């Protein structure tokens, strides 16, 4: 128990320290790979033990500098610890995959430090209990992901000019959204005089109770919805995603689509369900409407795409709509569904993106129309891609089936018939575009016969196979035995709707 106490800060500090240390070993490629895989495996084990500890012993609060609620707190509750486990799993797999996928030059020079910083940023966002600290980790995440997008991998057919253009869009829009977040934080601080999220929640609840809640609290809540909606690619703010995500190399694409867009969902779950209870009555209909538009726009855009990576990026837009639909409905069951959907989509989508990177390398093109019959030369990739597509489309026996089942069940239980109807129609779209893609890539005639010899040499290496197979096992496991995930998610949903334990754990601290 005593050694467990420091795990939250280690989860943030260890990757930051290694971001600096790996720069020193840039000439020793093998050592660096082994070191980083070791670090990320360690992070995964630690985050898992943290989740178990939080599950058994309640919320763990770590005071950085022992200043109580006035200093920066790291709070590991079930939501935060669960998200850290998810991000550690995906980043471990992406790291194992990347050691063989990335170009040697990119790998030696900048990949490892930036990837470590990205992991630190993600863990920091999920564990911090301070809203300004969250802003700082957002910046760490954005800048490190910008540096990672320019790197090149072996299946990467994006030109450098396109990558720079994508990053320019991504960074400018991120800066604007982050300035908006800072304005919201400043207004919040000027209103309640604290930055600790639990403390803000107590004070705003008190203001609402006495009927003196200032009207601009609602405005702040909307501004933060815009910020997190931008991160999560909610409808009017989704346009950057289809440019930026496909420009990244496959492991980074998996991290961006798997975890980084989930940060927005986490922000809404954490900040809005904890602090802005009073504003949710008007934000929930907006969230439901926008998430339905997101589902529609993402799915219809994906149907018309022939660029494999762009198709999957639009699919991500559509799928994040389903998660936010659950978040918007806001009942305990719907939040459970949103969490289950989030976890399933994160794992299945990152697996699909990792498989896509290898497929593009194998095929030598990113146009679906030029591929065909790859099942003969790459049977392993075809199976992995099929499992991913089945999970995203929601077919048993994969985890995506239960995600969709629980979400639609929750929606029908809460009597949101029309939104669930729309979501169902576009779930069929998902099924259509993913299986059309799978069929045209892996079945049918072998196109470009002259390149067939090249196919034999471009095969996945053992590290890539291991990471893909492990992720596929997780996806199948979640489909066959979803009980633990659903129980965990429903506990998280209860904690979100009743944040008293969180507030009590944070505020009952002795100040030095």
């Amino acid at each position, binding site marked *: 128990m005593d050694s467990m106490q420091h795990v939250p800060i280690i989860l943030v500090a260890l990757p930051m320290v290694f971001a600096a240390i790996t720069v020193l070993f840039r000439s020793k490629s093998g050592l660096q790979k082994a070191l980083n895989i070791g670090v990320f495996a360690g992070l995964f084990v630690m985050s898992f033990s943290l989740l178990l500890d939080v599950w058994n012993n309640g919320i763990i609060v770590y005071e950085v500098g022992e200043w109580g609620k006035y200093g920066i707190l790291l709070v590991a509750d079930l939501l935060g610890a669960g998200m850290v486990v998810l991000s550690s799993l995906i980043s471990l797999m992406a790291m194992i995959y990347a050691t063989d996928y990335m170009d040697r030059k990119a790998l030696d020079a900048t990949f490892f430090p930036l990837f470590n910083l990205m992991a630190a940023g993600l863990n920091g966002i999920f564990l911090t209990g301070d809203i300004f600290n969250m802003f700082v980790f957002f910046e760490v995440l954005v*800048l490190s992901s910008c540096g990672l997008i320019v790197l090149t991998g072996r299946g990467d057919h994006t030109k450098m000019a396109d990558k720079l253009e994508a990053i320019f869009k991504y960074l400018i829009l991120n800066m604007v959204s982050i300035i908006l977040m800072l304005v919201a934080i400043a207004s919040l601080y000027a209103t309640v005089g604290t930055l600790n999220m639990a403390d803000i929640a107590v004070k705003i609840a008190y203001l609402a109770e006495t009927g003196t809640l200032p009207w601009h609290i609602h405005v702040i809540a909307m501004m933060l919805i815009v910020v997190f909606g931008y991160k999560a690619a909610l409808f009017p703010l989704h346009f950057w995603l289809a440019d930026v995500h496909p420009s990244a190399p496959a492991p980074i694409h998996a991290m961006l689509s798997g975890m980084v867009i989930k940060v927005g969902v986490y922000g809404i779950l954490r900040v809005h369900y904890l602090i802005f209870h009073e504003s949710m009555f008007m934000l929930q209909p907006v969230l439901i409407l926008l998430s339905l538009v997101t589902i529609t726009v993402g799915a219809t855009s994906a149907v018309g795409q022939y660029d494999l990576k762009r198709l999957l990026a639009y699919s991500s837009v559509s799928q994040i709509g389903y998660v936010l639909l659950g978040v918007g409905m806001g009942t305990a069951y719907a939040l459970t569904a949103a969490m289950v959907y989030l976890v399933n989509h994160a794992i299945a989508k990152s697996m699909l993106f990792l498989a896509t990177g290898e497929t593009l390398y194998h095929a030598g093109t990113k146009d679906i129309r030029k591929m065909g019959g790859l099942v003969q030369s790459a049977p392993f990739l075809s199976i992995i891609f099929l499992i991913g597509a089945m999970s995203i489309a929601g077919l048993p026996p994969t985890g995506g089936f239960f995600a969709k089942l629980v979400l639609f069940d929750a929606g029908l239980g809460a009597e949101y018939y029309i939104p669930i109807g729309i979501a169902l129609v576009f779930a069929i779209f998902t099924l259509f575009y993913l299986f059309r893609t799978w069929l045209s890539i892996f079945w049918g005639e072998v196109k470009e016969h002259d390149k067939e010899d090249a196919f034999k040499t471009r095969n996945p290496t053992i590290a890539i196979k291991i990471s893909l197979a492990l992720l596929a096992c997780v996806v199948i496991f979640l489909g066959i035995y979803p009980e633990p995930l659903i129980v965990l998610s429903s506990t998280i949903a209860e904690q979100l709707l009743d944040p008293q334990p969180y507030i009590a754990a944070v505020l009952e601290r002795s100040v030095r």
Partner: protein
Amino acid sequence: MNHTLLSVSIALLFAIGTFMILRKDMIKVVIGLTILSHATNLLIVSAGAFLGWRTPIIINEGTGNSSGIIFTDDLANGILAPIIPEGTEVVFVDPLVQALTLTAIVISLATTAFLLILCYRVYQEHGTTDVSEIRRLKG
């Protein structure tokens, strides 16, 4: 009066910044972002504004309801830094906002540097700084 001036100047900075990030030149967009981030910094500082009577951290004589003897560094009595002597009560400006602003300034420095390098690289690759001509990716 002070308050109004501060609010108006912050609003003006936001307006200028918003205007600038809608320009077509990349460098102007970056300048606009810098102005926006400085407007935000001012907004944060204004959360701990003087209001005409709150004491800033260093002042020789207090006004209003302050005691007048605080925040003086008095070498004769061995006080080196402007610290409130024990037993004095005074309404002072929130110093935390300045710490927040410092953090925000450092972050915006880093991002601005990154953005300028990025603009230069985009210029090298595309041969133009006009945003409307850089659209090979179709959103």
